[in-house]
């Protein structure tokens, strides 16, 4: 039971991180590794600002704002001009960006792990035998809130259709009146802000930030996006929770039998052999 709750919390964090890249992927077919830089940024800002100003909340908000700006800059100045060069070029560019970001973090904040001992004024929750720490509760609430909003926007409003239209042909979408540049900018800004939020939660939960904080999420996120069916937000969330749970269960029952990161990818490969189109496939048309 405890294990399941752990798994859910971890899965929620994965979902929060993967949601942004999933939307970006759905929109531009860019596998955006650079997004993980926003995660680290969010982590640093919340700890640094909590230390300086005493308010973790301020840190989270500044982190999200900074994430949004970073997302905007990355799409406008880096990705858009090379979009027509295909997914491999953008993937490797994103990796390059991520390297630059981690190096900058290392130079700015030093190479060691930093912590600030942020104490949230949140009560722990006792549900029978299970104790849920305040931060875990917060993670669950925030994630499900974000998921709910995303789901509503994408399926219940016209924005969902516009997002899809841009995703399929951003030039023609412009010609039917969709402001493609703005949709793209918005998706990046939101995606990076969410990652910054995830980074803030992650670093408060584990009370640690270091320059390569984003490493593992960066690559696991790819597996999750795929598992979920590439560009399908709902699938991504389900996949993230599933991976979180499976990881915890596997560790609880077999120990670290497999490297944790391999679990996600082994799950991925197994699933692709059975369902090559992902858990909840996004719509694709072979022409």
């Amino acid at each position: 039971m405890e294990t399941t709750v752990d798994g859910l919390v971890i899965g929620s964090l994965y979902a929060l991180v993967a949601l942004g890249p999933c939307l970006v992927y759905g929109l531009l077919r860019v596998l955006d590794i650079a997004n993980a830089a926003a995660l680290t940024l969010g982590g640093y800002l919340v700890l640094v600002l909590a230390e300086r100003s005493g308010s973790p909340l301020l840190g989270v908000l500044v982190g999200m704002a900074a994430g949004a700006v970073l997302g905007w800059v990355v799409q406008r100045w880096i990705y858009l001009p090379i979009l027509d060069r295909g997914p491999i070029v953008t993937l490797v560019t994103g990796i390059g960006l991520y390297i630059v970001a981690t190096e900058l973090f290392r130079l700015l904040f030093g190479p060691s792990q930093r912590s600030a001992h942020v104490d949230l004024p949140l009560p722990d929750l006792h549900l029978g035998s299970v104790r849920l720490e305040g931060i875990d509760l917060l993670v669950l609430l925030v994630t499900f809130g974000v998921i709910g909003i995303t789901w509503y926007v994408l399926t219940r409003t016209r924005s969902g259709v516009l997002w899809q239209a841009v995703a399929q042909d951003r030039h023609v979408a412009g010609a039917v009146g969709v402001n493609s540049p703005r949709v793209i900018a918005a998706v990046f800004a939101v995606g990076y802000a969410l990652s910054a939020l995830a980074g803030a939660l992650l670093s408060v939960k584990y009370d640690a930030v270091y320059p390569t904080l984003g490493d593992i999420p960066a690559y696991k996120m790819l597996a999750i996006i795929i598992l979920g069916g590439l560009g399908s937000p709902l699938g991504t969330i389900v996949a993230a929770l599933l991976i979180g749970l499976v990881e915890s269960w596997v560790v609880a029952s077999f120990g670290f039998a497999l490297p944790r990161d391999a679990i996600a990818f082994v799950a991925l490969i197994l699933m692709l052999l059975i369902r090559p189109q992902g858990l909840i496939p996004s719509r694709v048309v072979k022409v």
Partner: protein
Amino acid sequence: GGGSGGDTVKVGFFAPETGFGSADGRSALAGARLAVEQVNADGGIDGKLVELVTYDDASDPKQGAVIATKLVTQDRVVAAVSGSYSPQTLAGATIFQRNKVPLVSAYAVNPGIPETGDFIFQQDFNGEVQGRAGAVQFAQDGVRKPAIIAIDNDFGNALVDGFQAQAKKSGLDVVSVDKNEFGEKDFDAIIRRAVDAGADGIYLVQYVAEGTQFFRALRKGGTDLPVLSTEGIDSAGFLDSIGGLAEGAKITTNLNRDSTAPATKAFLDAFAKANDFPADMVAASSYDAVTMVLDAAKASGTGSADIQQGLRDLKDHEGATGTVATFTDGRQVVKPVQVLQFRGPKLVAVGEITDPSVITP
């Protein structure tokens, strides 16, 4: 091997200044620099100043061989010190051995390093020694059924091998061994497993980041099993980031901050003056490795072969991490293992393992 032409004595050095090991790289470099500065302030060796030629291996094993070649053939160093982890050190060692340039490994624990050949020395006690010392210490503390939670790389493997070998002799019954990847954050489930398996103590072989998360999980789970860890968390950053979470836990390491030995005190003072972060075992070990090379050069001459001879002849070398009587025939050291305990904001010495059958490689 390289000659010692010119008016400086060139000593090579490499450490992971960037990449995941960059925190250790920073300490190692600072320790090595301190040793060289001190010697140069004293007038150098035979009137020649010492020049430390340093390279960053970026925490990448592949770079070991390239850097070694560069140090040997381009920079023509007379000897070198590895301030890096085992993979890089091993890769470089082959090259130094082929070129007959002595290499001293500062804190890499793989027992295979000195096996590379007669020019390769290991300054720190190797991983198996420290593992054995861990088992002895746990037995002394009254633990009977330890669980092992170790990082899955050669550091972890070497220590776990030593610990398990000694465990039988010391009457310990290891209930479980779990190995995690670098970067692991979630130890909740694995601790629960250890408890369920009936463990009455945890032997923890981790680095700083993983160690921090382990203690968080341990406290969160409300478990108060005794924990014995290793030099892997003996790092400048750990005390700072851990808060009070590791209170009471012990580690085995080579640097005793409370030591009354003059060499250790002098090092700690000088290091504190030169740097804005505290000394740790990586810094001290790198400092010691470099001083060993320089002392050997002082004693026997500044050629590569001279330094090799000097290292072989090294007697009662007083270093920051204790006194080395001599290198063994296998070019390893025999040094007591320090046992420290987390008490408040400090690491306090609580014991020393000196049993020769344990600490001799």
